């Protein structure tokens, strides 16, 4: 497959949301270095094309997209996994573009090899402990006010629990929202069942139902 040129913003959305990890070059016609990076992408496409797809778009033609990804200069390469930017390379850094592409291609093929889909992974994670908390940061260093309040309440119960830091894994962070149909973090699971977020935990606490709910 050749390096695809983005012709309109619907194309762009379709490409970056694809199952295949996408390597997107933000370029401009007048910048010679961009042609150099395009050549690199063509080269990578010929060896990694079965695992990654490569696209190029005119950064100035799509100011909103460029702004969103804080493109300050061309060429910039952004790596997308199912719609989320997972990595980037600013400037003509052929070595970095190559090694990051290879790394992403490798993780794509290892996921395929083990047959572990995201859903399998999420199911395993929510069942990892009888009481599982998905939060920003960890119990010792919560990185958002809601997560912090939640940990304080759960600690009061003296029940054992495990946490998962969603800031450390963008795939889980986005995936679990869809998987559990719940848009925010923190999320509390008991025996693999979503109990709710902080509001619900507070309400259970107020109704004296918290401990029973957390024990499942």
């Amino acid at each position, binding site marked *: 497959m050749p390096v695809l040129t983005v012709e309109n913003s619907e194309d762009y959305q379709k490409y970056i949301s694809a199952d295949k990890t996408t390597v997107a070059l933000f370029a401009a016609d007048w910048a010679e270095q961009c042609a150099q990076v395009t050549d690199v992408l063509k080269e990578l496409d010929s060896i990694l094309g079965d695992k990654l797809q490569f696209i190029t778009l005119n950064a100035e033609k799509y100011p909103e997209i460029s702004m969103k990804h804080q493109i300050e200069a061309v060429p910039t390469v952004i790596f997308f996994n199912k719609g989320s930017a997972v990595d980037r390379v600013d400037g003509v850094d052929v070595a970095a573009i190559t090694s990051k592409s290879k790394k992403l291609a490798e993780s794509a093929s290892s996921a395929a090899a083990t047959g572990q889909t995201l859903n399998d992974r999420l199911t395993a994670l929510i069942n990892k402990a009888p009481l599982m908390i998905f939060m920003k940061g960890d119990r010792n260093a919560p990185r958002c*006010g*809601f997560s912090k309040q939640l940990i304080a309440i759960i600690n009061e119960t003296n029940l054992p629990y495990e946490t998962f830091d969603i800031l450390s894994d963008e795939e889980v962070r986005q995936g679990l929202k869809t998987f559990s*149909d*719940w*848009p*925010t973090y923190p999320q509390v699971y008991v025996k693999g069942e*979503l*109990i*709710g*977020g*902080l*509001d*619900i935990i507070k*309400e*259970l606490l107020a109704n004296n139902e918290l401990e029973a709910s957390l024990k499942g």
Partner: protein
Amino acid sequence: MSKYTSKYLEDKLKEKLDATYVQVTDESDGCGGKFSAIIVSKAFEGKALLQKHRLVNTTLAEELKEIHAFSQKSYTPAEWEKVQQQ
């Protein structure tokens, strides 16, 4: 930053959930990123806590993509009466 205001959210919740009482408070000093809400609606009757919250989340699915922090207390009319008596 988001483009939403308390008034906008109140109106939407009232309309979509047929709520009898809605109070949305902007806790972000006006930047529109943090809200808390009290919602009273018959639509919550017979629903578990999680289901009530899910209903509100679904109603505001678009808005919640931009609102950074949203907390809710969702009551049926009977529950709300009890809360007020406390």
